Structure formats: C-alpha cells, structure tokens
C-alpha cells in the first residue's frame, strides 16, 4: 500500500499516456494535443490510460473505437470532446468524461481533463472503464487439447474456425505461409481512417484490399432522428473549398498550404523514427497558423529553409525513401495534377491559371524522381515557396475559376485528390515490404476526410459547394 502510494505520487507528474482518436471535426485538435507537454501520445492502445476522442465518430468509427478501448490496459478511461451537440459516441461509451469547450479551447481542456482523470484513476476515486465488447472467442473453439492439438490435420485442424495459413509461392518461388492482417482505421502510421486488409508473406505484401472510408456517413433513409450536421471536410481544406466560390486572399491560401505540408512533414518524420524533430515541425506549423494571413514578418520561412536544408542532407531519410512508391504513367495521368504528379515531373498546377499568382511570378515546383523521396522534397520546397508567396502577396485575392489547387491536389474538378489515389493503392502496394508500403502511403498524403467529400459512386460531388 505504501509502495503504491509512493508510485502514485511519482506518476502524477508524468505525462499522461493517451491514445488519440480523431473523428469528424477533430483533426486540428489532435495536432494541438500532440504538442501538449502534459500528454504522451502512444502508438499503441496497450500502454495508454486515457482514450481521447476528439470529434464526432461516424458509425464505422464507433466499433473500431470500442475495440481500441478494450485493448487498453486498466486502469483506463475515456475523455472526449465533440463539436456536435448530438454525439453518437455517447451511445457506445457508457462512462466517459465529456469536455465541453469551444473548438479553439478544446485541446487545452481535453489535456487538463486527461490529467485530472488519470490522477483520479490512480487514486481510485474514478472507476476504470469496464470492457465494452463481449469477452468471447471470435470463432468457436474446435480443437481438442489446449493448444489446438487433437483435431484433424497436423496442428489440430481449424481450432478457431479459421483455416491454417494459406500457402502460396513467394517472390523467390518458395511455398510460404500467408498472414492475413487487417489494419486501421486508427493505426497511427497510416492516414487517419484508412483501413487495409493485407495478405503478407514474411513482411512482403501479396495483395491489398482498401476498406470502406469510415468518414463517409451512412445515409439513413426516412430516419426520424435529427440529422447530424453536414460533414465539413478536413479543416486544412476550408480556405481552398471557399476559394471555389468566392475570392480568397492569396496569403491566406498559401499559409494554409504551408501549414498543411508542415503538418504532413511532422507526422511523416514521426513515423520514420524522428519523433522529436517531427514534434518541432508540428510546433512550427502551429506558429504559421497563428501568424495570420497578410503579415509579412517572421512567418517561419527562415526556419523552413533551415529545416529543408537539414532534411535534404539527412542521408538516412533519403535512404528510407529513395526509389519507393513510384507510380506508373497511367496512374499519374489519373491524378490530374497535384503534388504527387508534380514530384514525377508533371508540371500541372491550378495556380498557373490564376492572374493573382501570375502577377506574383508563381512557377510550380516540379521534381523528377516520382518516388517517395521526390514527394518529400517537393512538399518541403512548396512549404518554403508558400511562405514566401504569403509574405509578398499583400492583399491580392484569387480569381474564382471553379477549380483550386489544394494542398493535396486539384479541387473542384471531378473526384478529389485522395479519391483518385485510393483506387491505385492495391496495385501500388502489392509486392512491397510492409515498411515500404507505409513509406509509400505517407508520401501520398492521403486524406480520408477529403475523400469522404467525394465518396465512390457519388460522381462529381455536390460537396464541393460546401
């Protein structure tokens, strides 16, 4: 008891281990949470004490959130913030700490609530959240002995109703077992919401199926329930979507682009093992945001130049990305522009058609490699270019042409950039090692929230009008 009390007193000042889940409207908040010193964001739910849900969960995300919850070690608790008054998450988590705050203050309030809840959990004054899914075997046990022996076949047949691993030839022609794995939608290394069913031999991918986008809301025909608020799309895209309808300050758009690229870079560095540097870049992206459009001083461009130079000299980063995830000519043509295409030498950028950009002497950044390394370098270069444009743009406004160059590609003309990329994944990832597949996915900068604006089968989405 004494030992426990000493440990609890020591633990009270440790950062709270949290597993972050970002729902609709929570994408910006999770970034701010990552910058909070009071929290330690974990890669796996296992060591987390707090499941932190920022944003509203769609029905597809709810079940995955329950699975994450039950994987966490006890003592555990759920702390959540939702922008919507009606929150379906409340229906699946019987006990949770609800944070009531406006979006701007949500991150700080969530972090404070996490600290208090952790302290209460350790003190025993807040009950640990019980398992929420039934504790039953996913398939009936059909083996005879405790280890599956005694059934039919060499290792007991199909003790859990699952067949033994299928065997197939690997790339060297050897017959090897295949491991079926479902990952997502909350695997921190993947784009938020991405679900993949992967068949592996060793860690080489034999085939991939992309799961349904969990950010797409299920339509409930003739429902008597109150309608949920319309999905606003990712926060990063808001000014670009607005520029489809009304003129927007060039400086505002370019700051948003720089910020998006830096956020992407922060996340990518973390996944590539440079977590502390990634956090520094994330902090830089937050500062770019707070400067506001039009201010010409200290937008962070000097820091981005320094960052770009240091990352271009980092040979291990180049080693990890060079030659990985090259797209074929047909695949690039399907993209219709955007950073991924520009990183493969295709000089296409919607900004070239805008007189405001032409007056600023804008020329698109183009790289030739077409691999993950070229995409890294292109985004770094574009972040630097965007900050310079924001500094020199003054009050110039964009011209409404019905299309806009978003940070991930062209908007307003057919499906969005991520919707164009998602169908390419099975072909692109098959044959890669798992680590290379993650490198490829990172470099494509997929955004499932953006893809939810133009879900498959919806044609040219009316969502562009939002």
């Amino acid at each position, binding site marked *: 008891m004494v030992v426990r009390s000493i440990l609890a007193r020591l633990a*009270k000042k440790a950062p709270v281990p949290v597993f972050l889940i970002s729902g609709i409207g929570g994408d910006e908040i999770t970034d701010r949470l990552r910058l909070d010193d009071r929290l330690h964001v974990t890669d796996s739910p*296992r060591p987390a004490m707090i499941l932190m849900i920022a944003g509203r969960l769609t029905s597809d995300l709810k079940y995955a959130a329950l699975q994450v919850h039950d994987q966490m*070690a006890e003592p555990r608790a759920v702390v959540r913030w939702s922008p919507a008054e009606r929150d379906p998450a409340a229906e699946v988590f019987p006990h949770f700490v609800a944070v009531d705050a406006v979006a701007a203050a949500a991150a700080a309030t969530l972090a404070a609530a996490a600290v208090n809840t952790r302290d209460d959990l350790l003190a025993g004054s807040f009950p640990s959240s019980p398992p929420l899914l039934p504790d039953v075997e996913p398939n009936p046990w059909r083996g005879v002995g405790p280890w599956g022996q005694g059934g039919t076949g060499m290792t007991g047949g199909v003790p859990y109703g699952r067949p033994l691993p299928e065997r197939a030839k690997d790339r060297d022609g050897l017959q090897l077992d295949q491991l079926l794995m479902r990952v997502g939608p909350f695997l921190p290394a993947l784009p938020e919401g991405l679900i993949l069913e992967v068949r592996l031999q060793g*860690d080489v991918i034999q085939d991939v199926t992309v799961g349904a986008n969990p950010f797409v809301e299920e339509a409930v025909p003739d429902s008597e329930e109150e309608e949920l608020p319309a999905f606003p799309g990712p926060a990063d895209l808001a000014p670009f979507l607005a520029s489809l309808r009304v003129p927007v300050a060039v400086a505002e758009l370019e700051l948003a682009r720089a910020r998006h690229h830096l956020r992407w870079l922060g996340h990518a560095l973390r996944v590539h*093992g440079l977590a502390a*540097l990634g*956090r*520094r870049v994330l902090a830089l992206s937050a500062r770019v945001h707070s400067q506001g459009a039009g201010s010409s001083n200290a937008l962070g461009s000097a820091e981005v130049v320094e960052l770009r130079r240091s990352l271009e000299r980092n040979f291990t980063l180049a*080693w*990890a990305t060079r030659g990985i995830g090259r797209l074929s000519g047909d695949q690039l043509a399907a993209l219709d522009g955007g950073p991924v295409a520009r990183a493969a030498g295709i000089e296409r950028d919607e900004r070239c058609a805008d007189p405001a950009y032409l007056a600023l002497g804008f020329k698109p950044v183009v790289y030739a490699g077409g691999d993950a390394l070229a995409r890294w370098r292109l985004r770094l270069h574009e972040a630097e270019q965007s900050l310079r444009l924001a500094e020199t743009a003054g009050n110039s406004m964009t011209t409404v042409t019905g299309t806009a160059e978003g940070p991930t590609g062209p908007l307003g003309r057919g499906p969005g950039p991520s919707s164009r990329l998602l169908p390419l994944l099975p072909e692109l990832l098959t044959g890669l090692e798992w680590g290379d597949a993650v490198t490829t996915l990172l470099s494509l900068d997929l955004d499932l929230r953006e893809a939810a604006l133009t879900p498959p089968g919806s044609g040219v989405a009316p969502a562009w009008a939002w």
Partner: protein
Amino acid sequence: MVGEALSTAGLALAVVAVMIGGTYVAAVLDVLFTRLTMRVAVRPLAAAALPLRRAAQLALQRRTLTERPDAGTWALAPAVLAALAAVSLAVVPLTGTLIPVEADTGIVVFAAAMALVVVAVYLQGWSPNSPLSLVAAYRFVAEGLSYEIPFAVVLIGTALPARSLALVPIVTSQEHLWNVIRQPLGLPVYLITVLALSFWGPLALPEGQDVAGGTSLELSGVPRLLWRVAQLNVLVAVSAMGAAVFLGGWLGPWLPGGVWMALKTLFLLALLVASRQFFARVRTESFVVVAWTVLTPLALVDVFLAGIQAMVAAR
C-alpha cells in the same frame, strides 16, 4: 569459503549497480536529447525525474493479454534480454582490479551472449500472437546474421594485438595506443552493429512506428517497463564493452581507472542514445545489403590489418 561467497556477491552487486545506474543515465540522456531536438526548455531536474515518473506510471498499470498468447515465453522475453545484458556486462573489466567475471575467453562470452539477443526479441514479437508484432519479429531475425558477423569480426580484431581472448590483456594492450586509433574501422563498424543489436534509433527495425511499436506493440504495465529496461541494459553493456576494447578501458592519466571507464562508457552511451535524434529509421533490406556488402568487408579489412600489425609488433 564465506569470503569467496561474499566476494562473488559483491561482484554481482557491482554488475547490478552498473546496469541500474547505466540504464537510468541512458533514460535521462534520452529525455535531454529529445527536448534539445524539440527546441523546448530543458529543466535538468525535471529531466532527471521523468524516467522515474514514467516507470512509476507503468508499474501501476495492469498488463494486458492478447488472444491465445504464449504467456510463458512472453513473460520470459524481457528476462532473457536482461540476463544476456547482465552476462555481457559481467565479463567487462570495470577497473584493473574490479572484474566481475575474469574469463579467459571473455570476448567470446560477450559476443555469444549478444548473438542470443535475437532469440529474446523474436520471443517478444512472436509470443503475443499479434500480426504486426510477428512481422516485427521476422524483421529482426532477417537482419540478425547480417549484423552479427561484422560485430563479431571487429571484436576479434581487438583481441589480436593482445594475443588473448581475455578482456584484461585486451585493455592493457592499449596502454600506448588505443584500438580506436590503431584500428580506425573497428569502432564505427562496432557502433553501427550494436545499434542493430540493441534495436535502437535508426536500426530500431523491430520497434518501428510503421509497425506501431512492433515487438512492444502489445505491452503495457510492468512487462513494458521490464522490456524497456532490458533494452537499455543492452545499450549499457555494449557501451561498456566498446569503452574497454576500443577506448582503452580504465587506462588514462590523473583520474582513477573506474572514473575513466565510466566516462568512456558514458561517451559511447550518449552517442548511441543520441543517434535516434539524427538518423531516420532505415529499411530492413537496405541495412541487410549494406551489412553484407560494406560492413562485413570493412570488418574483414579491419581484422586483416590488425593481424598484420600484431605480426609486425611480435617481431
């Protein structure tokens, strides 16, 4: 008889003290380097307390179980890793007189123990019956042989000038010139291979973010704490051995031998710990290719040159 037992217990305590102290220092260094990289304020007292606070938090957390794990081997993995680190450290002479285990084949014992790290990591990845954890375990096995060969070869190189596999003669053979200068290829190859062996920094292949922590993905509570401690134990052991066989161990002017040994070990430990702030995690395949085509040939050149030097010196 009693005196011998007391002496053995004292030496065992010395090994445990070095392991615990070194592990704590490594954890504090990691906090300091992380905060410096993030360019946020560094408060030394807070940095010194943070590893203890995190450890206390993990100690209060319950462990979780996966679906049908091999619970026995899962529990065994951190113990195996820590035991291998302890065995490795036990043969390292801490001063000219404080030698926990003085074996005639000390360097062979060290290399043999470190070669078995692959078993502990594989057990950790395989036991929870979890796909990403298993993939991470495969990775470590895949790279195992490729780092072990250059690792062992550069260690043999340090034994040649001493004409002995015992560590005391290897240290004393550096009285006039340390092996880091006499065998300039040795220490760089050693440091790269021990990064792979201790799955740390750019060579944390079985614990990468792409596999959500890989072999430690399913760990929580005390097992997670033990695994982290065991990993740092390995870093301490390889740093101490590096200090002994490349940097002249306890040899040095003015200061007591133990202080020199501690400073040299701390230097190598800091280099290894800091590596994860500067270098991105490399691809398994790229590392294996480089290990076979660059590190192994360099290690062979190193041992060849060391052999020639030893022959010339003998005449």
